[in-house]
């Protein structure tokens, strides 16, 4: 009933609302010293910074935090008591954060029940409860990226066009390499113009090996060759790049299925790590992506990129809540070490703590 009540109420509130569109997130942000992508030689990814993980995470999420928390705060401070109107406005805030209608409804219902059960009357206490509820959802659906005992570990990176697959691969390769592992990349995006060159540049920068074919070659064959080469050269990690594809293109998804089959056959019963890269600015379509990619290949986790660029990031909550697919990594900036293990505690803390 929440949303319908909320929808009804909108009618009355329309004249009252004064905030103009688009301005809330455009407010000037303090420039983080680590302004991304400015230096030519490093392109999208900058060199590592020694600063603390927590500080960087907070910094990366500052936009998300400021707009989201500011709204929750202003919402709570304008209410003297906990009433339906408060819940409805909470729903509004969540929907605007891309959490999605369904997840929002369940989230707010859960908060409502807790408040009822706890006999809470102070609006100030709603925030920790919302935080706790989001944390519960995220914690239930988290799994770190762990490499299997058997080498080589195989990681397939999939996703729609422009999600940030190649950059994610560069960061992953850098991470494993600095752990002393031998890494090989497979340039199985044989479709997009210059995709192979792009991956090759990254391989050179990071200092890892690469297997490539001609543009237009069978991507499954590239995957096969990469695993073979990885084995022969004693690599620890094989990372396979795939072409970006919209999840509704049946033929392209079949091609992906084939790559998946070839990889699985090569692993003889071991399951590859299949990471779905999702752009955090994506709205509800991310759910469709997660669902349809999972149908083609067994996706084992989600990488959320560009989380520093969006004002929201609520889609993380929707993906965890609706699909139970673990969020494994998040991209919060353009430096190599800005690809982080997803830690729900840190995420929610950075989201809520000023």
């Amino acid at each position, binding site marked *: 009933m929440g949303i319908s009540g909320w*929808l009804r109420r*909108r009618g009355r509130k329309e004249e009252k609302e004064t905030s103009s569109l688009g301005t809330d997130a455009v407010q000037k942000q303090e420039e983080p010293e680590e302004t991304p*992508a400015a230096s*030519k030689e490093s392109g999208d990814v900058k060199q590592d910074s020694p600063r603390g993980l927590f500080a960087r995470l907070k910094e990366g999420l500052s936009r998300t935090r400021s707009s989201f928390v500011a709204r929750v705060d202003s919402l709570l401070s304008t209410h003297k008591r906990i009433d339906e109107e408060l819940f409805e406005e909470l729903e509004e805030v969540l929907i605007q954060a891309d959490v999605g209608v369904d997840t929002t409804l369940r989230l707010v219902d859960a908060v409502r029940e807790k408040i009822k059960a706890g006999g809470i009357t102070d609006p100030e206490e709603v925030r920790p409860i919302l935080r706790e509820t989001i944390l519960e959802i995220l914690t239930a659906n988290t799994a770190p990226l762990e490499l299997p005992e058997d080498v080589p570990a195989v990681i397939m990176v999939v996703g729609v066009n422009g999600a940030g697959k190649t950059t994610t691969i560069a960061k992953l390769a850098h991470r494993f390499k600095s752990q002393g592992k031998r890494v090989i990349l497979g340039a199985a995006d044989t479709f997009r113009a*210059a995709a192979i060159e792009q991956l090759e540049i990254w391989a050179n920068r990071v200092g890892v090996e690469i297997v490539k074919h001609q543009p237009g070659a069978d991507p499954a064959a590239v995957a096969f060759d990469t695993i073979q080469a990885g084995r022969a050269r004693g690599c620890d990690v094989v990372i396979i790049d795939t072409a970006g594809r919209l999840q509704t293109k049946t033929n392209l998804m079949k091609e992906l299925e084939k790559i998946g089959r070839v990889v699985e056959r090569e692993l003889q019963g071991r399951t590859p790590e299949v990471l779905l890269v999702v752009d955090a600015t994506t*709205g*509800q379509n991310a759910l469709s992506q997660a669902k349809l990619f999972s149908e083609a290949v067994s996706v084992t986790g989600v990488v959320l990129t560009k989380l520093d*660029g969006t004002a929201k990031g609520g889609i993380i909550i929707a993906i965890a809540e609706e699909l139970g697919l673990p969020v494994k990594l998040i991209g919060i900036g353009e430096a190599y070490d800005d690809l982080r293990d997803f830690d729900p505690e840190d995420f929610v803390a950075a989201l809520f703590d000023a």
Partner: protein
Amino acid sequence: MAVFSSLAEKLQNTLGKLRGRGKLTEQDVKEALREVRLALLEADVNYKVVRDFTARVRERAVGQEVMTSLAPAHQVIKIVHEELTQLMGGSQSKLELASQPPTIIMLVGLQGAGKTTSGAKLARLLHKQGHRPLLVAADVYRPAAIKQLQVLGEQLQLPVFTLGDQVSPVDIAKAAVEHSKRYGNDILILDTAGRLHIDEELMGELRAIDEAVSPHQVLLVVDAMTGQDAVNVASSFNENLDIDGIILTKLDGDARGGAALSIKAVTGKPIKFAATSEKLDGLESFHPDRMASRILGMGDVLTLIERAEAQIDEDKAREMADKLRRADFTFEDFLEQLEQVRNMGPLDQLLDMLPGVPGMKGLRGLQVDERQFGQIEAIIKSMTVEERLRPEIIDGSRKRRIANGSGTKVQDVNRLLKQFNQTRQMLRQLGALDKKAKRRKRARPFSFFQ
């Protein structure tokens, strides 16, 4: 699962209910609009835009206009459609070219929105219209971005201007303008680096290019899958660069495209182009009215007709229609029609544009396997001319020969023959009907859809 159904489906459900009733009460409108609201929110339309939109529709719908009209349900649908169209920018907005060439078009946008690909598609489109576009590689940051543009330029056989990645984008842009004057390129398309909109430094660089060469058109490239943030992206680029229009990309996926609805409402800038395919010919003018029709499940009939007109020779079509009426439709004709339809674009896109199809449960997500077309074509081409004209002479031994010739099995040949006979049967009946209906119906040249 409700979450994944499209906006078109949602609105069709909602408005379908309205369609079934005679008169509308205020309560009816309210209930319908609540579902419209929900559908729009699930489609990622910005929250505030949704609010304004439904308010406007309610205002118009619950007035006398509807209550006294004869078919109130249709009236509401019309209003929703009109308001949707209005929201997306009213009438179609064309690219404005400079009175004094070269026209400079600058493409800007977030990382991964599709700037480079859109640039190439735009160049192709303009080239087709008789222009001499020059693609300018001004993204010096993303690895292989220049190479990507060069490869695309090669595919299109269009020139790409680059100074490598060690020169500042501002200097590249300036040099490109000089180059275009010398080589007679009347349109420059600047492919700039992608950025996150909070990135002041690169935004500053864009402003510098803007000041240095003063582009006639600054186009913002936006991913149709963008969520609530689309309005922030659009307004922050607009504030910095005073954009002239939008290119909406990745519309061929199942994104419900709420971004399209939001952006115009927020920036006041029109959506000029829509990218509807990965292929380089997949850039079309954005027609707000057609998009609204599509969203409402009315089918994008206009686009379909336009494409059909471009592909089908009208005399031939008339000849074909005559043949159909006389029922001497042969495999030769079949092949010809097949090719015409194929030339119109991917079949699943065509299906999407037909009224009612996007809402049909069984047909949603259905993708026609284009390879089957290839098979049919191969089978027909393996027939002798006589066999094509008189399929009834095809016996067992001929079938084996045709199957061998086309690399198929006898069963495939049988299946095609059976389908063909059924089609012919049906056409015969239609032909008989058509004669009777001739006076009432306007003769349509495009027989495939008759």
